[in-house]
């Protein structure tokens, strides 16, 4: 069967050294969702790809689909390099958490325009991240908001407005990833503790645009609780732990 070429927007999620001078790229594309591709000769200084295919780069790619599992990058135009984020250790750590979340949650070659848009907006907001508002990268409001939105797009959105077991709207004291949402005092067995401020914070991170995540004004404890909700949701529904969060 003859291969075919197509053009698509993509974000480089991961880049692995391969063979003598190649790299294998994990891409999230607008047209096909998650795609694996090989960039031949990219590690040579004379490569026409240059530095355009580093992780975090938002690019327009020409990909050739052959009979193998990996597609081949035949052309690249840079849309946004996100160099600012790549060269600042804090922004880079926050960005890597976002990239790993995409890698873990969206592993299928299936187009999801909203996930792609969320990813590009996350990277744009990362470049604009204010210098002053820095915490532990995993507890950054931007990446928490991004991951909550990804959970929503994956269908794992935690239900937080009432007890998932009995429907009670008051005295919500915990979060049960197994049940899929908040629980009241009566049904808190096996849940993690969650304050009403923490729940309000998660709701705010979900409803606020990514660029305004920091403006939602979550306190340290609220952010820690949001991270706990995200982490337990990953463990329960995806069966994984994030390497970049524990690093």
């Amino acid at each position: 069967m003859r291969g075919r070429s197509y053009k698509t927007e993509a974000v480089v999620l991961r880049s692995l050294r391969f063979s003598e001078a190649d790299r294998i790229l994990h891409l999230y594309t607008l047209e096909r969702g998650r795609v694996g591709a090989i960039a031949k000769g990219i590690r040579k200084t004379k490569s026409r790809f240059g530095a355009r295919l580093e992780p975090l780069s938002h690019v327009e790619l020409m990909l050739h689909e052959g009979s193998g599992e990996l597609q081949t990058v035949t052309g690249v135009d840079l849309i946004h390099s996100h160099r600012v984020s790549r060269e600042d250790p804090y922004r880079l750590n926050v960005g890597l958490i976002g990239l790993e979340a995409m890698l873990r949650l969206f592993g299928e070659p299936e187009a999801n325009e909203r996930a792609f848009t969320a990813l590009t907006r996350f990277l744009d907001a990362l470049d604009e991240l204010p210098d002053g508002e820095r915490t532990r990268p995993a507890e950054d409001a931007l990446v928490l908001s991004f991951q909550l939105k990804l959970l929503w797009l994956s269908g794992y959105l935690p239900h937080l407005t009432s007890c998932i077991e009995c429907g009670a709207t008051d005295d919500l004291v915990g979060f049960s990833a197994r049940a899929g949402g908040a629980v009241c005092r009566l049904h808190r067995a096996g849940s993690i503790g969650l304050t009403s401020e923490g729940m309000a914070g998660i709701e705010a991170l979900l409803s606020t645009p990514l660029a305004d995540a920091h403006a939602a004004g979550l306190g340290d404890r609220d952010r820690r609780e949001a991270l706990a909700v995200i982490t337990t949701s990953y463990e329960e529904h995806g069966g994984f732990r994030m390497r970049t969060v524990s690093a």
Partner: protein
Amino acid sequence: MFSPSVDNLVNQLTRLPGVGSRTAQRLAFHILQRPKDEALALASALEEVKERVRFCRECGNLTEEEVCVICLDQRRDHTTICVVEQPVDVISLERTHEYRGLYHVLGGALSPLDGVEPSDLRIDELMRRVEQNDVREIVLATNPTMTGEATAAFLADRLRDRVRVTRLASGLPVGGDLEYADEVTLGRALSGRREM
């Protein structure tokens, strides 16, 4: 498909980087066609290299002694250490004939996505060298990739208060045309421009 020993040789060759099954088959048949002593010389070279080559106690470069020739060379500048990711980077830098200091091979670059953390690299050994010897400058020569830059930033943070820290310049390759440079490289060349 051929015989158990040929199949075994093909399988072993396939484990080499960049060698697929076809190349492995071609190499295996080439070895079979060559005289016996030539094939055995290859086998003995493989055995010898695994027996004798090890990592330098000081810098982590490949050596046949406990300490490599570069670390032992008193004519070199022992107050400057150039930090690289892999032993092959030492060879590239030595080819320039521009650098006369010592090296430190980290054994990789930080990559949280791949689970490579500071404890997986020879960072503590570097800190020890800086503390124990009269080191005045650390040249960070990790690759200009995301992981290389992250490693350089991490090291710079830990070393900045103790010693002068420099980073290899990045920009246009000599002999190339500006019109073929990618935006990121050209951008870095512009921001790193120097007075003339």
